[in-house]
């Protein structure tokens, strides 16, 4: 089943080609790492695929109505914004918004989705805490629970591990892995290639607005690609504890 189909997507901004002729398809149960250097167009690609930026070409999500799209994909922007001191439960409940009409109270099914999302991220005991007073890692978990409560077949997250400590980074990626194994596809943009190599089922590498590689980590992360796209050298090994990828030196 195809959850997202992008064909010949291009985007020009201020006379610069930010995205050039991007095409890819995403099926069920994939955990896709979107990697590339700063300014390569990762965020732009995700927002254009969502239809939140005007672009040429085709994206299946951009063709949906706002309401249908909100039921097809959940989007987690990089900025972890929580504007008001609401409780954790209230925040997670916001994820049900696309499923509710104006003024409609959450139904039993909505309550179950909220409980499931909170349980998934171990937030059940924190439901009455004020979200704005939580630590950065806890806030990230609450916002992820909001996206899960939306119960969409596809989840897109922009640098979900940025600013988190190692244990939160790993547990975030493990949550995504678990989701992917259960059939929900996840697209995450990442800067940590080690995390990407270890947890993702597929990597899409973007450089200068084009896809330069697309495939399983072992095929994508070749020394040549790492050198040409990221200007670094790296140590890559499939060990008995999984894939280990460690960036080493900057290539000049």
């Amino acid at each position: 089943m195809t959850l997202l189909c992008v064909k010949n997507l291009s985007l020009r901004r201020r006379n610069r080609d930010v995205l050039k002729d991007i095409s890819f398809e995403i099926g069920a149960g994939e955990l896709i790492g979107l990697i590339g250097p700063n300014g390569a167009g990762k965020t732009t690609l995700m927002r254009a695929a969502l239809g939140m930026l005007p672009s040429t070409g085709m994206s299946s999500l951009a063709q949906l109505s706002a309401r249908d799209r909100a039921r097809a994909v959940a989007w987690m922007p990089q900025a972890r914004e929580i504007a008001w001191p609401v409780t954790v439960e209230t925040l997670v409940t916001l994820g049900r918004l696309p499923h509710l009409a104006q003024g409609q109270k959450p139904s039993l099914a909505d309550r179950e989705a909220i409980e499931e999302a909170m349980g998934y991220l171990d937030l059940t005991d924190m439901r009455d805490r004020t979200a704005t007073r939580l630590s950065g890692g806890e806030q990230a978990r609450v916002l992820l629970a909001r996206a899960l409560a939306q119960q969409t077949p596809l989840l897109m997250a922009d640098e979900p591990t940025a600013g988190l400590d190692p244990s939160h980074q790993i547990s975030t990626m493990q949550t995504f892995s678990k989701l992917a194994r259960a059939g929900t596809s996840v697209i995450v943009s990442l800067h940590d290639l080690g995390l990407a190599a270890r947890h993702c089922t597929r990597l899409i590498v973007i450089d200068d607005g084009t896809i330069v590689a697309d495939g399983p980590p072992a095929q994508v992360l070749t020394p040549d690609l790492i050198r040409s796209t990221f200007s670094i050298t790296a140590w890559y090994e499939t060990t008995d504890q999984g894939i280990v990828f460690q960036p080493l030196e900057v290539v000049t």
Partner: protein
Amino acid sequence: MTRLMIALTVVLALLFCTALVLGPANIAPLDSLRTLVIDDQGALTLVMREIRLPRAILAVLIGASLGMTGAAMQGYLRNPLADPGLIGVSGSAALGAVLSIQTGVAATVAFALPLSALFGALIGVFLVLLLAGPRGSSLTLILAGIAISALAGALTSLTLNLSPNPWAASEIVFWMMGSLVDRSMTHVWIALPFIVVGVALLASLARGLDALTLGEDAAESMGINLKRLRLTLIFGTAAVVGASTAVAGAIGFIGLVVPHVLRPFVGARPGRLLWASALGGAILLLAADIAVRVVLPTRDLKLGVLTALIGAPLFLHLIYKTRKDGL
């Protein structure tokens, strides 16, 4: 209805009755309420129906408008310090009023004064819209509002400075301070349609404002049409603030303070805060209007002076608290 809404409604009903039985005519409370309902063909019914009733109704309408606009603006801008006057609507409405006083149109044409305030508010809204652009962020909207406010303020001052009429200045001062003295049912009928439409528009924002708790990007991805939300907010604000300024002058701080006070009681949810703030705003303005009549009954204390005297220190305290909380 939640306990908070019931409590607010009860307080509002009590204050409304209090406002009706208070006045220089010294009528016994029960007599005054009876003559309000049953026409006695005399002065008492006239006082009740033509003086006290419109004044109390206007206090409720305008208070509710200002409270709800404050909650909506704060929810949209995700800034607890935002103010309905921030996008320049109050300033433009006041400018429209002052201009109509100065050109003499207000004195010659019936209802030219409130109508020009409405027109001023609309021009302010359109200018803000033009400056902020079709997809402007909260920041551009605030900046545009500040620019419009400054421009409207400067033009109002210029009009004042050039005034040849010795009474014009005092008339303008009276107008800018805000007051419900000598309002008639005509004023109620002028303001009511705009306020009803505006409040309906603002109330429809509840869902979008809740979603905006997560930021504009996340709200849009959850199916919220940000462009429509912004237009609804601006037209709703223009309708209620324009109509309110038109009949009672610029009454400040209601829209600023009420949402602040009520936010903890609605779990900080911006959607639920809208109606709560409408009730709270009505309560605050009615209470202020009663206080104006009780504290200095002979000196005609302006309503805007009192709300600023109550509101400003409370607001300063809130700013300090907000800073301490690291919000």
